[in-house]
């Protein structure tokens, strides 16, 4: 059985946000709505300073708090590991936003245009599937997976920091990377059991 997962190599990530932009333009999300983002952290004191970039998206947890908490059944765990989202069921309780420790769920208050003089032509196509007052999030680009393609973020990353594949397959690139590089999940102590692994 396939179990989809992702590795994010923090040694390769340059923080360029190409993944963020690929996600945004593939999913056509309204202003302010992101399924993924890159969080930066500066540490050290001058001149011994560093900054790391941590790309974040839905961790597609094996024990996802959003699934358990949502009163409307918006979120569901698929057999292939993806935490799916059906925003049409959402009535705006926003409990998901509170319980997700990874801040992976966005809430569309109101769809407003990017264009300073109204909707730009692409926006008219972009927002067809969105409704104000609903929660949305990353679904690992299920539609692309069905076509045999990697998620948009993985496919575009110029430095190839993101990899995607079957965690159940010991020979998949992600499984090998997790083993060889000691892949770690975020906040393991919370028991959410994410399927996104960070390589440091």
């Amino acid at each position, binding site marked *: 059985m396939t179990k989809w997962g992702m590795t994010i*190599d923090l*040694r*390769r990530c*340059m*923080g*360029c*946000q*190409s993944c*963020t*932009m*690929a996600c*945004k*333009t*593939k*999913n*056509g999300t309204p*202003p*302010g709505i992101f399924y993924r*983002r*890159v969080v*930066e952290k*500066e540490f*050290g*004191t*001058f*001149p011994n*300073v*560093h*900054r*790391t*970039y941590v790309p974040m998206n839905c961790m597609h947890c094996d024990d996802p708090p959003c699934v358990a908490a949502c009163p409307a059944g918006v979120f569901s765990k698929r057999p292939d590991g993806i935490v799916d989202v059906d925003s049409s069921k959402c009535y705006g309780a926003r409990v998901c936003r509170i319980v997700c420790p990874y801040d992976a769920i966005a809430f569309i208050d109101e769809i407003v245009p*990017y*264009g*300073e*003089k*109204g909707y*730009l*032509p*692409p926006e*008219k*196509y*972009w927002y*067809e*599937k969105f409704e104000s007052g609903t929660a949305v999030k990353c679904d690992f680009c299920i*539609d692309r997976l069905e076509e045999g393609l990697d998620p*948009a973020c993985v*496919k*575009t*990353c*110029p*430095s*190839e*920091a993101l990899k995607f594949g079957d965690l159940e397959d010991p020979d998949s690139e992600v499984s090998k990377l997790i083993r060889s590089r000691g892949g770690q999940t975020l906040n393991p102590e919370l028991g959410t059991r994410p399927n996104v692994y960070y390589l440091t």
Partner: protein
Amino acid sequence: MSDKDVKTVKSVCYMCQCADTGIVGHVKDGVLVKVEGDPECTPTFGRQCVKGLSAPFVPYNPNRVLKPLKRTNPERGIGIDPKWEEISWEEAYDIIVPKLKECREKNPLGLMLNFFDYPTYHLATPWSIGFGGQLYFGAATWCGWYHNTAYQYHLSFFREADYEHTNYILLWGAQAGHIVDALPVHSAKEMADARARGAKVVVIDPMMTPAAALADEWVPIRPGTDLALGLCFWNLLINEFELYDADFMKSKTNAPYLVGADELYVRDPETNKPLIWDTAAGKARPFNEVATEDTALFGEYEVNGVKARPAFSLLAEHLKQYSPEVISPITTVPVDTIRRVCREFGEAAQVGSTIKIKGVELPHRPAVCLSGRGPTAHRHSMHAVFCLEGINAIIGNLNVPGGTLGFAPYYKKRWGVTEDEDGFALSCNSTYFHFGSLDTYPAREPKKPAWYTLLDLCPVATFSDNFYPMMLSLPPEERKKFGLDYDIDVFISTHSNPAVYISPHEMTEAIKNVKFFLYFATEMNESAELADVVLPNSHWTERYDPIANPPFKFEAVGDHEWYWFFRRPMIDPPPGVQHWCDTMIELADRAGFLPDVNQLYNILNELNGSPQELELDKRYSYVEMSDAVLQNRYGVSVDWYEKNETQVFTEPKDIEEAFPGPFVPGRCHVYFEYWKRVKPEVEKVVKELGIEDVWDTDDYTPLLTWTPCPAFEPKNGFDLFAINYKVACHTFSHSYTNPLELEIGHTYPWIYRTPIHASTAAKYGIKDGDEIWIESEFGYRVKGTAHLTEGIHPECVGTSGFGGRLTRGAKTGRKVSPNWNTLVGQRLDLMDKMNSSLDGCVRVKIYKA
């Protein structure tokens, strides 16, 4: 967004100047809804950076220019309404064509064409030269000045690291490999691969840029002192560590050339060739007659009755003054750090080692030094750039595996490299591909300037474009002193934003001196708002560019295939809008000089005598003209790309083309005798013009020398430097009107806010998030929001990219961040007289707003 009815079109990205990636545009009902990297485009790994992905919003800019516009308000300036009147194309031609005819009749040099549009150089240049006018590439103001060295060291206009075979990457005020330099996408993967392989990255920069933040080591430096540190590196590599490539010095540079007391070569009386001391023969012999192993780099000899020393010996002695102990207080880089980084770099170069690639044994120099704009855009730019790029020459890494490689200098071995009579390598005729940028050796004959760029006064510069705005800003009587006794009657600009690329307020005043200003615009911007007539221009997503990545420009280096990109429209241009080059052909036709354009096109593109030679009296489209060059130069055609429904043509590259260093003839300079030799000629012209008071020739010295910038010493309370750095999500001014890029830019505080070191902020009583003024010594100030960080040199405040747009048209991006260019002083005394570089050292003070 449903994928039903979505048409896909293969094209080439052009969100920055690079044409770096093959893309697929997704089009629904004629609307571009998505752009992504083309997975079938192998040279760019099917990937796409943040800028290109945001392309769908750009052609639909609400301030897009869709109709020809005529100014009705005679008053011009920033923020002043031009009171546009929409006119028809015929009406526009009726205004423009007589201006062209009058100018051509009166003085064709009164026409200036300004463009920064690489795919169109092959046509735009013949257009302007065919008219009899001048050229100005514009956006070069803040270019990396290394182009001045590239023709000599890399036999090309651009160079890049051979990441695949290198182990040590020194980024000197540069972010190569981090999505902001040439080949952003290609190099990002190669950089990441190199790093994963264990290559060490060290970044020398006053700002902890994204590249510096990820580097193994960030070495903060005081702005404007890179030349001092660079010379210290030369000194350490040559004198203290002896980690230079002696064989390379002897055989591929002028280091062994014997120099007399007059600092000029000692030449053979019979052949006039420069001499080398032959240790085996015990006498001086012409450079081409001495074996490498018998070549002397040190010593003093009696030759032709005069005392002579190898240039290298003079260089080594000259460099001794630049010890770490002397240089550390100048640069603020600790003595130990200087020694350690330099030694690491020198040792990583593995001088003497070889590598076998595809069965061919080659020199292997796996250490590179790449300089960027910051360290070289200075008053003494020419010395800085030859010093920093010359570090590569010292370790012998030029055009060999693991080192620095030129972009396509040896394509099909016919864009050849030849050797001149003094033994120096001449890259193939650079004007062939990048008209207006010239080889920097040999020196041209200095003359009274014909062009506003004063190129005739800069005989060893690849271009001298910054003098153009400087000259334009002068009153006519002042300008006459430089030999420019004519006005600019017609100024045509496109793919450039000349009103703002130096000091916007001063440039705006300068442009007022133009008699007639025609601007080709996709969207309303600062320059368009100063124009007399604005003509709509198709956006790159709507146009053909059959030669999308011209050679010498954007072509991955090293052991990869050759690839030539073809841009095709993903969407239709708005009704009545066409490629600016087709409009230019129309203008030439109507004004009666199209045969001259065709003639120059044949000459400059070397079509004469070929089956593709243009008929002089025939009118061709831009695509037809491009096709002639495609067929003639690459043996491919527009038809081929269309038939194969692709955007990329690839050809195999052999090892000699990939690493031409050992296979091409000729030497390069580490001792700049030709500067010294041309100096009196420059001085003669300067004296004839009577501009000695403003035009010094002090930098024409054969040995690279540290001289502080005027801003080196703090003065009158202006005790900080305002610095500027590039970020991945922005390029030039136009990206600041793209709401997608702006939204991404807000993610990080160091993009739109003003980074200040926490200790500096404390000194000024500034807290994180405070609104502050940054005021420069030149009388301008910009507002920013303080971002306290440890990641910046304490003597600096940072600004990124090109925020703070001043255009009336767009609300988007107007006040998003402080505009650094506003702070810069546009003054002749701040410019390098050798290459026109304007000093980017800007002293400022900050205070709460």
